C-alpha cells in the first residue's frame, strides 16, 4: 500500500499548477511498471533494456520495452491505464512512450507495431486526452479516439 497517487482534474490542474509547486502532486516513482502480461503463448519474448526475457504471465512491462512473438506465439497485456493489447504471431511491438500522470495532464501512449497483428483497446489515457494515443506502423500513423482497433502490418 506504499503507492499513493493524487490526480486532479485537468482544467483545474492547469490553473492550479500555476500557483502550486509540482511537488504537491508528485506521482509515485516506486513502480515504473506500465503494464502486465496477462496471456502468453510460446514463443514470445520481451526485450527490456537490451536483455531478452520470456514473456510469461505476470511479467511486468516497462516504457521502452519491445514484445516479440514467433510463429505460434501470442501475448496479451493490460496497461496501467486500463488499455488492453493482444499480439498475434510473428509480431513486433514497442512501447515508445507511456506517461500516465493525469494530475499534471501528462498523458501519452505512443507505440509502434513493426510487423504482425494486434488488437488494442484504449484506456484512461485515451479518455483523458484522445489525441495522446498513437500507433505507428512502417507506413502509417494511427490516432485513436476511445476505441478498439485491429491492426495488421506485413
Amino acid at each position, binding site marked *: 500500500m506504499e503507492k499513493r497517487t493524487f490526480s486532479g482534474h485537468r482544467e483545474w490542474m492547469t490553473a492550479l499548477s500555476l500557483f502550486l509547486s509540482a511537488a504537491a502532486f508528485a506521482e509515485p516513482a516506486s513502480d515504473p511498471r506500465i503494464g502486465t502480461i496477462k496471456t502468453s503463448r510460446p514463443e514470445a519474448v520481451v526485450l527490456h533494456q537490451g536483455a531478452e526475457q520470456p514473456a510469461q504471465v505476470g511479467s511486468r512491462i516497462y516504457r521502452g520495452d519491445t514484445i516479440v512473438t514467433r510463429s505460434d506465439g501470442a501475448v496479451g497485456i493490460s496497461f496501467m491505464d486500463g488499455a488492453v493489447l493482444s499480439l498475434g504471431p510473428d509480431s513486433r511491438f514497442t512501447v515508445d512512450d507511456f506517461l500516465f500522470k493525469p494530475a499534471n495532464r501528462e498523458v501519452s501512449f505512443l507505440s509502434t507495431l513493426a510487423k504482425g497483428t494486434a488488437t488494442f483497446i484504449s484506456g484512461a489515457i485515451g479518455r483523458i486526452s484522445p489525441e495522446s494515443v498513437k500507433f505507428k506502423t512502417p507506413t502509417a500513423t*494511427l490516432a485513436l479516439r476511445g476505441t478498439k482497433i485491429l491492426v495488421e502490418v506485413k
Partner: protein
Amino acid sequence: MQRILMIAFCGLLVTGCSGTRVVLVPDPDGKVGQVSVATQAGEAVLHKSGETTRASASDSKPANPEVWSQDQIQDVFAAALANEPLPPQRHRIHFATGTADLPAEAGPVLQAIKQAVEQRKSCDISVIGHSDRAGDDAWNRDLSLKRADAVARALKLAGIADACMDIRYYGEHDPVVPTADGVSEPRNRRVEVEIR
C-alpha cells in the same frame, strides 16, 4: 548475380511491404469510437463498426474505407483475438457525505471484487478514491484518500494482498457527474476499484 539478388529482394518487397491494415471494431462496452489512419499523402478516418482501410505505402493515400465481415476479420486476426486478456472490470462503492465509513451496501461489492480477483488470479488492482465538491479542495483530497484506504483495508481483510493494490486518490477532480464547486453529489462520492 547481383541483378538476380536485386530481383529476388524486390519480389520480397512486394509481398513484404503490403502495408498496414486497420479495422475499427466495437469496444467491450459495445461502443464504436474513431481511428484516423494517416500517411504522408493523406488520411482515412474510420468511424463505423467493421470499417477498414489499408495504407500500402507511406507516400500513398490510405485506401477508401470498406466494411469487413466477421469472417474477413477472423481470417486475419483470429490468433490475436483468441488471446486477448479479459477487459478490466470496474466496481464502485459510494459513500455518505463527509465520511470514509464503508456503507453497509459495500459488502456485496467487496464480495464481487474478491471473486473477480480470484477468477482472474489478478495481482493488478487499482483502488481510486474520489469526493464530491462539497467542502474545500485539500479536505476532499484527504477524504478521497481515506475512502480509498478504507476500501483497501476491507479488501485486505477479505484476503487480497497489499502488494497487489495500487492506491490512488483524485479528490474532487474526476467526477462522474461534473458540478459547480460546493455542490454535494452522491454519485461522485465513491471509490472505484479496477481489476486488471
